[in-house]
């Protein structure tokens, strides 16, 4: 409750300090514009973990960010799925994915991106794409030293999103 209020205050303060454009979640500076959408925590697709155990196992926000970068770096270098990312604004994707991971790990971040359905309904992903991405996520978590069973707890949160992500 208190945290929510602080966040709202911080957001209000930031809104005064910066031009309105900078706060538009559909068009941040340095990112390409996406169609307008309503920002909501529910867009992250799943409720966060409780407590600090998961965040610690992922080595905090920095570790979680490294995992996102590791996953995306591997994905764009993978011939099976690289093509999917050619036209993608990777600046926005890195930012929103880092927000989402941090939010799910209960790292105190707000997720400001689109819903999983909204973000993926035009890309035409198929089941094998999901498998490939998960493998890169596993490799990235391995590289960060996240224990296998902890990785699985995190993957269990993401797994049902496949229904929104895979469209053909």
């Amino acid at each position, binding site marked *: 409750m208190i945290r929510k209020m602080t966040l709202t205050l911080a957001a209000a303060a930031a809104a005064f300090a910066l031009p309105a454009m900078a706060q538009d979640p559909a068009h941040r500076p340095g990112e390409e514009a996406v169609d307008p959408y309503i920002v909501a925590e529910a867009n992250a697709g799943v409720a966060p973990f409780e407590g600090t155990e998961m965040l610690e196992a992922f080595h905090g926000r920095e570790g979680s960010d490294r995992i996102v970068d590791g996953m995306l770096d591997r994905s764009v270098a993978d011939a099976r799925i690289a093509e999917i990312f050619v036209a993608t604004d990777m600046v926005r994707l890195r930012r929103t994915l880092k927000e989402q991971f941090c939010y799910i790990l209960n790292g105190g971040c707000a997720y400001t991106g689109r819903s999983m359905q909204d973000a993926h309904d035009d890309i035409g992903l*198929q*089941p*094998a794409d999901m498998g490939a991405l998960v*493998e890169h996520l596993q490799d990235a978590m391995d590289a960060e030293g996240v224990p*296998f069973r902890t990785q699985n707890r995190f*993957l269990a949160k993401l*797994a*049902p999103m496949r229904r929104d992500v895979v469209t053909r």
Partner: protein
Amino acid sequence: MLASAIAGVAQAQSLIPDSRTGGKLLLTGGVSTIEGSGGGGLSTWATITGYGEEDGIGGNAHVTLVDLPDYQFRTAGVAVGLWDRVELSAARQAFDTGDTGALLGLGQGFTFTQDVIGVKIRLTGDAVYDQDTWVPQIAIGLQHKTNDQGAIIAAVGGQDDQGTDFYIAASKLFLAESVLVSGAVRWTNANQTGLLGFGGDANDDHEAQFEGSVGWLLSRNLVVGAEYRTKPDNLSFAAEDDWFDIYAAWALNKHLSVTAAWADLGSIATFDDQRGLYLSLQAGF
């Protein structure tokens, strides 16, 4: 007009996924059972064999050896999984009585050979990705078995040298716990899974039997666990026991895996305590 029709076709085609192999995660296609279906070793799972997801096909070949004190049991087979929906399998089993054959009056090295043709259809659920519900992946299937030793089977009281098992299987990966649970109910009248024929002087009807397994995922390529399988007891000349094993399945990659187990197959044709090493090799995609 034509251009828009072509564009329409192109768009319609883009809704159809490209055919891709290897979409599943390591080990999630299961290994090969002694009857050739995808699953554990002794118990059938609801998973469709191979690494094809809904957008691909998978297939594999396997050889399995179970080395028992008084017998040797070998099986070899092939299976394909089509779009993670349908599984077709064929296996040939050899139950080699070795020296025991002479003691049973069958002759040294007497071998029962059985062919098993299997079909499995996934009805609903995704054992791996449906992590927000307890609902498992569910499949139904059948295995048609033909044994080549009709005369011996009749002599020991068996009613038929061929038979069909029907089953329904449910499998679920509890990913957050790194635990896999699977169970199946099989309607069968097979004696020692059909190696001693079908039906007997004590009972000829199909009965519901249970087979189940648990597995702990230790890493992406290693799972250890245990299986249990109940069996009918149709022949009065020899009591038949439930089967049990503890196993480790290790995948080198999506093309090669090895399963090793310690299996307790109980009493077989009056020879008790048939416990031994189970070793299975699977190659595929």
